[in-house]
């Protein structure tokens, strides 16, 4: 069964450093998403991406965050200068068309620990 894959599974970084989280969405999907989940809390929407541009973003997704689809398969989340409160599990997701009724599939997540 096709799946969303994410790397790294866990990354520890020093505060102020840049981090890039990588994702390979399901191959025929068109919509891509990043979510995050702080330990013990609910999953929070960060950003959705379609046709090489951001289609929607949350208030969490400030200027420190950016997304990119550098080639036909990868989708990345960059955090420019990490803060302690960026420590969380980051989930990439993708869906076929993004219209109602199309399932969003999640990857297993990348644990980011900022120290």
């Amino acid at each position: 069964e096709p799946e969303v894959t994410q790397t790294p599974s866990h990354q520890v970084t020093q505060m102020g450093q840049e981090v890039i989280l990588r994702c390979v969405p399901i191959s025929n999907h068109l919509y891509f998403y990043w979510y995050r989940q702080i330990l013990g809390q609910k999953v929070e929407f960060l950003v959705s991406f379609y046709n090489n541009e951001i289609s929607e973003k949350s208030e969490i997704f400030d200027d420190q965050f950016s997304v990119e689809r550098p080639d036909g398969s990868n989708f990345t989340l960059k955090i420019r200068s990490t803060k302690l409160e960026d420590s969380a599990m980051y989930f990439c997701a993708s869906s076929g068309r993004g219209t109602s009724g199309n399932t969003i599939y999640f990857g297993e997540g990348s644990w980011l620990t900022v120290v």
Partner: protein
Amino acid sequence: GESVGLHLPTLSVQEGDNSIINCAYSNSASDYFIWYKQESGKGPQFIIDIRSNMDKRQGQRVTVLLNKTVKHLSLQIAATQPGDSAVYFCAEKANQKVTFGTGTKLQVIP
């Protein structure tokens, strides 16, 4: 604003019994609803979904009910098994944004 919330943070059921997990939503613009299961340290796993023009949908051992009048969503799990123990999130979708509820932890008692 929009919000999705769950009535019960923790639900304990005996193995073999049926489980019902409830969810309230407030964004009337949402047109698609999903239930996800999340096991510890893993990503949300799709269970079942329902469009806003439906009120019931059944899968294998799971049923989702949607009541748009009171903005209520429920997940029914038949013959609950130990492997069903996890946190269950309801989620609503409007445009390109999926908003998750706070989650209900389901504990299955052997």
